[in-house]
């Protein structure tokens, strides 16, 4: 279940004069209710760490000549790498969508006389840029590899 929170959670700087019971974490945390999506959201960080290692490997191969480069290209076609990249893509989309849902909330109501545009406009703009840039990158990479 949820269990105990940090023993000092919400503790005042000078402890109260009676013995208190240890703070408990929210009961549905970390895998039930809305917390499930949140926990997943935070765990995807591990995937990006791994993606980073893969990117480093590719870059290292680039610096080591054509043979190393072709070797890495061949490795990357292995089914487990492909599966990994599909999972990474799904998680990026998941994180992106969740983050974009939060984005309009983070806009100040006004900057001077200027109000932010309505929520659908902000979201539309974010998705347009995201898909546009992703599409462009894909085109370059696909065109650059022959």
């Amino acid at each position, binding site marked *: 279940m949820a269990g105990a929170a940090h023993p000092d959670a919400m503790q005042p700087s000078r402890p109260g004069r009676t013995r208190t019971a240890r703070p408990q974490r929210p009961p549905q945390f970390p895998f039930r209710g809305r917390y499930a999506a949140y926990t997943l959201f935070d765990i995807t960080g591990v995937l990006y760490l791994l993606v980073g290692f893969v990117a480093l490997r590719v870059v290292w191969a680039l610096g080591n000549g054509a043979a190393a480069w072709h070797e890495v290209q061949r490795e990357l076609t292995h089914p487990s790498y492909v599966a990994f990249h599909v999972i990474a893509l799904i998680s990026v989309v998941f994180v992106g969508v969740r983050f974009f849902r939060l984005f309009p*909330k983070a806009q100040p109501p006004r900057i001077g006389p200027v109000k932010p545009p309505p929520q659908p406009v902000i979201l539309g703009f974010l998705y347009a840029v995201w898909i546009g840039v992703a599409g462009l990158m894909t085109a370059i990479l696909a065109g650059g590899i022959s």
Partner: protein
Amino acid sequence: MSDQDRKKFVITRFDPDRDDEPRKQTYEVPVEPYWKVLDALNFIKDEIDPTLSHRWSCRMAVCGSCGMLVNGKPSLTCKDALSDYGDTIEVEPLSNFPVIRDLVIDLDGFMEKLHGVRPWIIRAKQRAAEEGTYRQSPEELEQFRQFSMCINCMLCYAACPVVANEPAFIGPAAIALGHRYNLDSRDEGNAERNGIFRGEGTVFSCSYANECSEVCPKHVDPAAAVNQAKINAVIDWAASFVVPRGGGE
């Protein structure tokens, strides 16, 4: 006349002088159809077990005293209708807080966090009463009005996974209150509060759970305040290299 509806209440009990750990106690209560959870707790205290301790006062969702976990979720017990729940209802003290007794938690840590954001009008020069009120347009009021609605019920602290793990984190309600003053056109304390927001217990500990806004009974949307505060804190930090500090306007 049909039998009165009865519900089972499983309530956390804890007397530090008698119990090593909190324990559960079950009560069977005859309930009225229009009751809130608080009405059942008061019935238990009046008629069944006077040793049950809980906080309550206004019973109209404005004083913030009666926050508890009901079936695992932070709720205002004076606002939650019994008819929304089944036959067994679990009532526990708010999560993430030290528990003093039964359903009563220690809120002095919260009071310190509130105090820590300097929640008052900061100005280089205070106006004298004779000079009259400040001019504030309805648009300027609307900027911060939503964030001024917090009743300090602490449901957001009970729901926040970061509060559970990081004792120093300032937390949703305190950040929302500090942000409320930052947005108030009468206040000049942005630089000071943004420094606090970047310091120990930083607003950047928030990892976008959004649970605080989901449980807030007054629609304050503290998650919006925290994330706006993050942006403001960064802008303020960057601006401090360009614009000299010190010397009010």
